[in-house]
């Protein structure tokens, strides 16, 4: 009964259009005043102690690193490198755009940031080469989603924090599905381009490839810092994030010199703005899930679902469908923070690996970002291409099928996500 009231309250408040963080906080307040015996004072303490975890602090650091990479000329060089590699294929520029997104995703933990970084270069380039604008925009909005699947990933950190799983293992688990998704997107782009006879670029010589690689190596080295550093036990994920932020700053300002020193305070301020918004949602979501836990609600829901005799595959289908709809209305972090603590106990009871569940949720979030009405990537891409939201949505629509196909594959073949982390962390 209580659970129904809490959720009904939250949904009503969300539908009024108030900020998600405020809706979460208000439902907690209202519930505490009206029904619960927990003293309201606990809220103020929770507002502070909720954030008092070093793991969460990786989020602002990765946002900062991403901001330096986006503005600092790293994206341009990655695009150039990707173009020399696959530009000679059918639809070379579009295939390069997917590959660039995959590379950039390996440096940055955010999807919209990936769309901005690669899209602002590639969308105009594709239009200039005579691609239909809608095609280019669809490709970019979709492959920008790789940003949260290929590590590092802010969404994965949020999942790890709200379910107490290992950030390192989640990152490693994202690699194979991420590469798979990138490969499938490149394949589909190539097939479409071949069918419509989209232009190709001249084949780059080995020398040019090497030159482009050497130019982009300073940016690409962040992969080594993050993945190598975390897996090799050199840093904690948070430290890796801080080191990559400092490194990205040095690359952007001193090595490439595309960012002026006097622009740094602006980058810091914008990253702080974005981070604070996420941290504010996280604080209030932690408050909300604290309330749920103290009312024993996740356990009740878990028991109820198990009592319905749901098999693992049915549960996962249910998860996917629910997330698909949730993803249409809310942005990823809030969905994960609200739903992950509810899904997790069920998944554990049904013998589903929490890491696997995490990857499934992340791919669902990718899907949510290209489905209307609230598709963050669609908004960003429409801003970049100066196209209406409806047109961009239509442009991205066929890609929803492609991403869904990969999602189902990863959902029902758990080894895709789990093979690498099990191998690397020695889990049998």
């Amino acid at each position, binding site marked *: 009964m209580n659970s129904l009231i809490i959720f009904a309250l939250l949904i009503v*408040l*969300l*539908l*009024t*259009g*108030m*900020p*998600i*963080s*405020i*809706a979460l*906080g*208000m439902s907690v*307040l209202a519930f505490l005043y009206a029904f619960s015996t927990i003293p*309201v*004072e606990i*809220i*103020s303490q929770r*507002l*502070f102690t909720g*954030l*008092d*975890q*070093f793991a969460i*602090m990786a989020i*602002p*650091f990765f946002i*900062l690193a991403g901001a330096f990479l986006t503005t600092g000329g790293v994206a341009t060089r990655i695009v150039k490198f990707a173009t020399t590699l696959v530009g000679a294929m059918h639809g070379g520029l579009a295939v390069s755009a997917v590959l660039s997104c995959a590379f950039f995703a390996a440096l940055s933990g955010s999807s*919209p*940031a990936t*769309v*901005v970084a690669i899209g*602002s270069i590639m969308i105009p380039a594709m239009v200039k080469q005579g691609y239909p604008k809608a095609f280019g925009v669809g490709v970019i909005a979709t492959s920008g989603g790789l940003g949260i699947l290929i590590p590092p990933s802010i969404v994965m950190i949020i999942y790890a924090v709200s379910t107490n799983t290992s950030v390192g293992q989640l990152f490693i688990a994202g690699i194979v599905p991420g590469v798979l998704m990138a490969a499938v997107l490149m394949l589909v782009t190539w097939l479409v381009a071949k069918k419509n006879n989209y232009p190709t670029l001249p084949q780059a010589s080995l020398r040019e490839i090497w030159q482009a690689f050497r130019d982009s190596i300073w940016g690409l080295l962040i992969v080594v810092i993050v993945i190598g550093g975390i897996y090799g036990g050199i*840093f904690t994920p*948070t*430290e890796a994030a*801080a*080191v990559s*932020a*400092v490194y990205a700053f040095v690359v952007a300002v001193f090595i490439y010199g595309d960012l002026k020193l006097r622009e740094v*305070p*602006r980058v*810091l*301020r914008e*990253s*702080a*703005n*974005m*981070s*604070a*918004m996420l*941290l*504010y949602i996280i*604080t209030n979501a932690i408050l909300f899930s604290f309330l749920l836990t103290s009312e024993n609600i996740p356990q009740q829901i878990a028991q109820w679902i198990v009592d319905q005799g749901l098999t693992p595959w049915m549960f996962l289908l249910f998860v996917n469908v629910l997330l698909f709809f949730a993803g249409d209305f*809310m*942005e990823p972090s809030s969905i994960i923070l609200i739903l992950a603590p509810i899904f997790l106990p069920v998944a554990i009871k049904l013998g589903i690996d929490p890491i696997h569940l995490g990857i499934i949720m992340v791919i669902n979030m990718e899907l949510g970002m290209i489905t209307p*009405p*609230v598709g963050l990537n669609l908004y*960003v891409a429409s*801003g970049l291409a100066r196209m209406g939201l409806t047109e961009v949505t239509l442009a991205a629509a066929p890609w929803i099928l492609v991403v869904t196909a990969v999602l189902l594959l990863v959902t029902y073949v758990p080894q895709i996500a789990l093979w690498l982390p099990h191998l690397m962390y020695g889990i049998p």
Partner: protein
Amino acid sequence: MINRILDNLEEWLIATFMGLATLVIFFAVVHRYSSGIPWVWQYTRNISTSWTQELCIYLFIWMAKFGAAYGVRTGIHVGVDVLVRSLAPAKQKFFVVLSLGSGAFFTATIALLGAKFVHFIYVTGQISPDLEMPMWIIYLAIPLGSSLMCYRFLQVMWHYLKSGELPVHTYGGDIEVVA
């Protein structure tokens, strides 16, 4: 005038906290690995870095509380506005004011509760485990940040009622105002 000072202070504060926290953790990592280089280590071995994680967390909590207030001003706190957008303008206005009002109400409540909590911690005289700073100063982030956020909600509401404009955050940074 006071608004200008407040705006600048807010922006300056969050950018500084962000940069400082990054440097602190970077320093801690560099320090840890300097132990592998004997001629550096003889100078750095006596520096203790156990306080860095704590400082980083506190800096980010302060950044989060004040940044959240800055976020109200830049319109970065988004909600589920699909339903509201489809309403007639008059009703839409009602819901926008309602959501801004709820924001102001929630943050005011938290500021009040936070202030009570700071007083409570002040009486107990707790200090932080590593930095040995009085905890009440650290917890001050909640009432201060939340009051500022409340003020920002009221400010945005006032501006909206006067001009019908809301701040809208766009990716890539610039703040642009759309009707």
